[in-house]
């Protein structure tokens, strides 16, 4: 770990930007998810993207990974415009990033060991004894060296996520995209994952993007935070700056108030009117 730590420190360069999103608009069918947003993710930092659920934070990660294409605008990864890459170039670029899915997405028919060896076996021709060393190192980093023989179905939720994390760092990517890494975790595994994200980022010189709505955890580890709501970036800054923001939307989100600029009630006709008017319920999605 010490060796890796040194390498990480060398890469610690504040000014460089790894992912740069410029005037990007994304629509799903007719619904606008992102309207002309721009944000940049600096190299070697933990950048958090926060916002209420259902606003497409995961979509943003898929856009960076090139699994979805935006309506307009650019997404640059190290200077390459992801939506305009050819299929081969896209796959080549994806070797430099990896993504931790919310469910872990471990391959259910393989053991934990084979899951972590999978990307190494796919992309390299290393001999099996070397692969074993690499896998053991990654497992050690997430504290699951003893669980190598288990099947994904035998792991708890937190362990599955750690195993998936080991798999996503198997080939030492430059960028890791974390999709809701804290969702549905008990306080202990939450603490473990918070620690892992921070320490892996610093030790391996990674760039991390964490998508989450868990305010305290994110405030604890992020270097820079973007808050997205209503198709726009409504606030950004370091955790300290976010805490001092006065915008009511940001305040509501950070403090977790149930009603405010983001209303408690889904858009509906006035309550009284609907109670008085004795009509049959009609499906208003079609109307």
């Amino acid at each position, binding site marked *: 770990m010490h060796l890796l730590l040194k390498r990480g420190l060398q890469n610690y360069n504040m000014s460089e930007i790894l992912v740069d999103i410029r005037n990007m608009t994304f629509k799903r069918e007719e619904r606008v998810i992102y309207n002309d947003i721009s944000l940049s993710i600096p190299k070697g930092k933990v950048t958090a993207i926060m916002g209420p659920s259902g606003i497409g934070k995961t979509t943003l990660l*898929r856009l960076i*990974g090139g*699994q979805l294409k935006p309506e307009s605008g650019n997404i640059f990864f190290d200077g390459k415009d992801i939506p305009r890459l050819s299929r081969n170039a896209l*796959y*080549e670029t*994806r*070797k430099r*990033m*990896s*993504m931790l*899915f*919310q*469910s872990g*997405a*471990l*391959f*259910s028919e393989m053991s934990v060991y084979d899951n972590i060896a*999978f*990307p190494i076996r*796919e*992309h390299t021709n290393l001999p099996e004894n070397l692969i074993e060393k690499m896998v053991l190192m990654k497992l050690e980093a997430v504290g699951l060296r003893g669980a190598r023989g288990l099947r994904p179905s035998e792991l708890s939720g937190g362990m599955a996520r750690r195993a998936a994390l080991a798999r996503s760092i198997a080939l030492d990517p430059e960028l890791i*995209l974390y999709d809701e890494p804290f969702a549905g975790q008990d306080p202990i595994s939450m603490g473990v994952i918070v620690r892992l994200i921070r320490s892996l980022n610093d030790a391996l010189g990674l760039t991390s993007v964490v998508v989450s709505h868990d305010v305290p955890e994110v405030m604890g580890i992020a270097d820079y935070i973007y808050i997205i709501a209503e198709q726009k970036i409504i606030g950004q800054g370091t955790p300290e700056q976010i805490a001092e923001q006065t915008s009511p939307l940001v305040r509501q989100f950070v403090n977790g108030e149930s009603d405010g600029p983001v209303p408690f009630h889904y858009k509906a006709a006035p309550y009284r009117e609907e109670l008085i008017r004795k009509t049959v319920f009609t499906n208003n999605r079609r109307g």
Partner: protein
Amino acid sequence: MKQVYFLGRKAIAIISGIGRALILLISALAHVPNPKKGFPLLLNQLYAVGVLSLVIIIVSGTFIGMVLALQGYTILVGYGAEASLGPMVALSLIRELGPVIAALLFAGRAGSALTAEIGLMKATEQLSSLEMMAVDPLRRIIAPRFWAGLISLPLLTAMFSAVGILGAHLVGVDWLGVDSGTFWSVMQGQVDFEKDIVNSIIKSIVFAFVITWIAVFKGYDCDPTSEGISKATTATVVQSSLWVLSLDFILTALMFSN
């Protein structure tokens, strides 16, 4: 006006579905498993698709051959033509029952399993995570399954016909007393290698192609929810059965009508 919109929406959905299925097919065909990394994948799929279908194919084939012999014998013996039992059984099995029933069983046993497996991989984000690992799921997941299906069904069909004929021999010759020599020699006189056996293999290859294509596409294209997977699995069995039966008619018309 509403109906026109509805019709248009349906038409667009169907056409774009066909388009997606074609893209999937072309990518699967383009990825002939390469010897070094692809072969183990193909082997595993041959096991899942072929070996695991073996029992149902052999048991069904034997029983269908036995029933054919029993029924055929009672009809033929009325004309004193029980010597024709061999060719009757062999021709029905090789020309029609072998390819068709093996294909229907294959759709139910292997096709539905393929759809459910791929659908579940999609629902649990395993396909997405492959893409993000820069591993093309079409190459890693779809292509080996497709090729395994294409190889397995013709072999299963041959086994089905063969054990069917053996089952008919058991009933016809050993139980009902048709002469064994007559059974085989009259059969050999009537069954033509090119016309019957080669056509049977061609039929089974066509069926294998259609079933595996539908199965992998339905899985790959399903809604990643439990409801979506169950719908896709049902659709695989229903659609591939209908395709097999209608294509069988077309192929028979082309092959056996001079």
